[in-house]
């Protein structure tokens, strides 16, 4: 009879768990309360069936337990009972299905007054596009995607030029206005999920998918990817901020249009050279760095990654954590750069500097590091050359002691956890795989063996020898 008792306990436990569980639907932030209601209806109907059928099961086990002196009843069929049960079940199923279909009807019907924005997913970050003043999205073609045209917009389409581009995983939406979310991917399948909205949908390359919702509650909500999209899937994060219309308008006005970005002048390394004067004291006139000052070599670094970090330093997204002492030292210098053009110019100049020889200083097991590096290679490249499209800067040719400091900072959340450092956030999540000092040393030892552009194989060999 233990089984009857255990079933009874499991039944009671199941019901209690349901009511006492601290894990429940997130606070609703959209118009889709109807989805929550359908869930609630389903809970009551299925909960009722679960309890009744299991109670009957327990009753049967106790009442008809084995007794050598008794015989089972011999009853191959009972047509009326079977018909009744079929009928009641059909009614119950219809009761579940009907409200579901009604709500689905509104889910697929986008209101006429909905404004539109587009979500673009790619490994492993989000960006967004608004149709601009004309209210029409410009044509896109994945073949047109380049580093300067990451959205693949057609420059010859008159609708393109005023499209507003948000090259950041943070987007603002005005409260209480229905919005149609158009979705596409430039590579694999992703899924745009904001738990508080309830609605979600996959993003695919080669087709545009959609859903609609009305944001109803001010606040910041995590965007996560809900369709397995590769190694960085779990770190593909973004943020939707639901704000009043005025706040949205102000933010929206600050976002560049495609036309503005196209018309922007190329960065000027000559102008950058003058700005670089303030950097020389620590990073050296040739960008060779100075270990004693904890200043890494920067010569030849990709301009886009230098620019991003300078922007982070300037805005305080990096170098403001109380434990990031060296980052704090960098901040005042970054704030000397007046505007985005200044940042682009100095970054362009740094890229022109010839890379210097990096002396290995970290000893570790490069072979073990190679296995760990397999994960890193997805964003930073198999040769550590960096992949701009996934926001992974080059790692080869960077001072190994600097890697060690930064990996530790990421792992502890000293760097990258800032609210505005969306790409740094990803690295915090990724760095969790390096669970010990040894893991960090091993992976850095392997990075030392990767020949950086401008480094000879001889130095790479030297790095390899340092492992043993």
């Amino acid at each position: 009879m233990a089984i009857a008792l255990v079933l009874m306990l499991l039944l009671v436990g199941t019901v209690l768990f349901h009511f006492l569980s601290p894990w429940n639907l997130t606070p609703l932030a959209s118009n889709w309360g109807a989805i929550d209601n359908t869930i609630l209806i389903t809970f009551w109907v299925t909960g009722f069936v679960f309890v009744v059928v299991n109670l009957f099961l327990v009753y049967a086990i106790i009442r008809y337990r084995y007794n050598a002196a008794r015989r089972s009843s011999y009853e191959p069929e009972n047509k009326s009972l079977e018909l009744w049960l079929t009928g009641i079940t059909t009614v119950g199923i219809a009761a579940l299905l009907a409200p579901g279909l009604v709500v689905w009807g509104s889910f697929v019907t986008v209101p006429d007054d909905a404004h539109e924005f587009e979500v673009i997913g790619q490994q492993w970050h989000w960006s967004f596009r608004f149709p601009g003043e004309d209210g029409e999205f410009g044509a896109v073609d994945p073949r047109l995607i380049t580093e300067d045209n990451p959205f693949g917009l057609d420059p010859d389409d008159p609708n393109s030029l005023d499209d507003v581009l948000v090259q950041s995983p943070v987007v603002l939406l005005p409260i209480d206005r229905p919005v149609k979310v158009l979705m596409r991917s430039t590579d694999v399948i992703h899924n745009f999920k904001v738990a508080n909205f309830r609605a979600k949908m996959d993003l695919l390359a080669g087709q545009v998918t959609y859903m609609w919702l009305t944001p109803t509650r001010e606040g910041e909500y995590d965007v996560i990817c809900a369709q397995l999209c590769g190694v960085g899937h779990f770190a593909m994060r973004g943020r939707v901020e639901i704000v009043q219309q005025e706040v949205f308008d102000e933010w929206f006005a600050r976002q560049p249009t495609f036309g503005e970005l196209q018309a922007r002048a190329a960065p000027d390394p000559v102008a950058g050279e003058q700005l670089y004067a303030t950097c020389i004291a620590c990073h050296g006139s040739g960008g060779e760095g100075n270990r004693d000052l904890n200043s890494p070599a920067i010569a030849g670094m990709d301009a886009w990654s230098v620019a991003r970090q300078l922007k982070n330093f300037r805005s305080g997204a990096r170098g403001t954590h109380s434990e990031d002492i060296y980052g704090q030292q960098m901040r005042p210098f970054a704030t000397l750069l007046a505007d985005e053009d200044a940042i682009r110019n100095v970054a362009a100049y740094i890229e022109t500097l010839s890379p210097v020889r990096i002396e290995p200083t970290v000893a570790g097991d490069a072979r073990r590091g190679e296995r760990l590096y397999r994960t890193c290679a997805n964003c930073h490249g198999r040769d550590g050359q960096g992949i701009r499209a996934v926001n992974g800067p080059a790692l080869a040719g960077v001072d190994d002691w600097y890697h060690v400091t930064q990996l530790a900072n990421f792992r502890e959340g000293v760097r990258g956890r800032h609210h505005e450092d969306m790409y740094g956030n990803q690295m915090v999540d990724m760095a969790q795989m390096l669970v010990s000092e040894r893991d960090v040393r091993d992976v850095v030892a392997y990075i030392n063996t990767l020949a950086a552009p401008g480094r000879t194989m001889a130095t790479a060999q030297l790095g390899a020898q340092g492992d043993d």
Partner: protein
Amino acid sequence: MAHTGHDATSYAPPAELPEMELAHPKTFIGKYIWSQDAKVIAIQYAITATAIGFVALVLSILIRLQLGFPGTFSFMTPETYLQHVSMHGMIMVIYLLTALFLGGFGNYLIPLMCGARDMVFPYLNMLSYWVYLLAVLVLAASFFVPGGPTGAGWTLYPPQAISPGTPGIDGGIILMLASLALFIIGFTMGGLNYIVTVLQARTRGMTLMRLPLTIWGIFMATVLAMLAFPALLVAALMMLMDLLVGTSFFMPTMMALGEQTGYQDGSPLLFQHLFWFFGHPEVYIVALPAFGIVSDILATHARRNIFGYRMMVWALVAIGGLSFVVWAHHMYVSGMNPYFGFLFATTTLIIAVPTAIKVYNWVLTLWRGNIQLTLPMLFSIAFIFTFINGGLSGLFLGNVTVDVPLADTYFVVGHFHMVMAVAPIMVVFAAIYHWFPKITGRMLHSGMGHVHFWVTFIGTYAIYYPMHYLGFAGVPRRYYAYGETGFIPESVVTLNSAITIAAVVVSLVQILFIYNLVWSTFRGREAGPNPWKATTLEWQTEHTPPRHGNFGKELPVVYRWPYDYSVPGAKDDFIPQNVPPEQVEMLPEGAVGAGR
């Protein structure tokens, strides 16, 4: 004349087919390695499936260690995590459950329960196993190639399955697809056998409506598999071509980590339709044999006829048919035309009706029975409880509106593990405890069996039930770690740690089960030919374990359905299928024991 059974007649039709000629090998290798005896092939299937299943079990523990204790184990990187998740899923669904139910139980039980000497194509049957073994070896080899096995998830969705950024694109995915193709080829050989044997090689008197539900379940599942696996086969071959030859069946014009690819205008959704056209019936390929087997075990150990036999048969057929028109409920948020949602939500919820009928009839079989709480019965009751839970949570996911917030969360993980992992595995255990005495002639050790049962039953419920609530909270699946996510509280990590501990305990007790199998094979108590006093033909063989050819000189003749338990007026509380009405020993008029 007193009642001697539901459909018993003295008439048996004459034999239509000549006796089958069997090749009786003389050597050890001929008998046990290159064997054409379905029973030996069944055991080969079972051992291979269990072995690779244990690999998948270990993978699941590694997955759970990462989820329960993130940032603790340096052997778990995001890459290895995804690889373990993918291989765990694929192995469990295809290489363990499908192979075990059809290749294992199918091979052992179909000829015996139909009253046949063997499968109708014994040589093909042997070949089926060896191709399956090859498929398993190719799959296992992917652990050892550079870059390791694929980490694309068991669903292998393109483009990511064959794009950079996914582990295993150097070789793992090729081996995965090749192994699937091999598996399907091998399975087709076996499947043809099962279908033809059931249709053509039943003994005299064994009408379709006298078949035990076990055979009905396995038969329907095989029919589904023969129709569904080709979709997976073409999907696998087309993906291989996209990867190796540069076609664009599933690959749209796209970038890959910042580089333009040569792919053009393929359709990722096409793969999903093919995959789930296979994938949904696959759920029932695993479930229908379980439904059938559990029906027979419940009837035998409750000493009562299965309630509503004809309804049970038609429910199996209905579920099998409907299972081909519900596939897109896996794709509600895939970006397919959203209007499909109306159709597929409706068909999906309709399938709940025949499924619910089966549950009612199992419970009604216990009702007014005489329930012996043997180990097979305990596992069967555990199946009913688990299946009710998993079936009801399916009503959430099948109803398109409710699915939207829950898709790709731990609710899905909880649901499908409950309904197609734990529930069928409970039946696997019930079946092993039930038929082990026939297969080896010895009983499994009851003490070890009880420890195994209680830990497995309560442990798996503790693992999977709470997961549904993580899903309500929005916790996504296939995540290596959750980092700082606004809507995921710290308590989720605590719950994950607890689930992991439960999973480790449940896994450890499976070692005890394997030990019990080995120990009992040599040391178990002698079982005798029919320890459960069951009616079906496999318990009526001349020898236990049955020899090659299954039955004695004469094949048994069937006079009744398989559920003549506790027939009023009969002396014994069971009448085997091969006992004609006039040979039933009756109680004297007015004696006790005639029903309740």
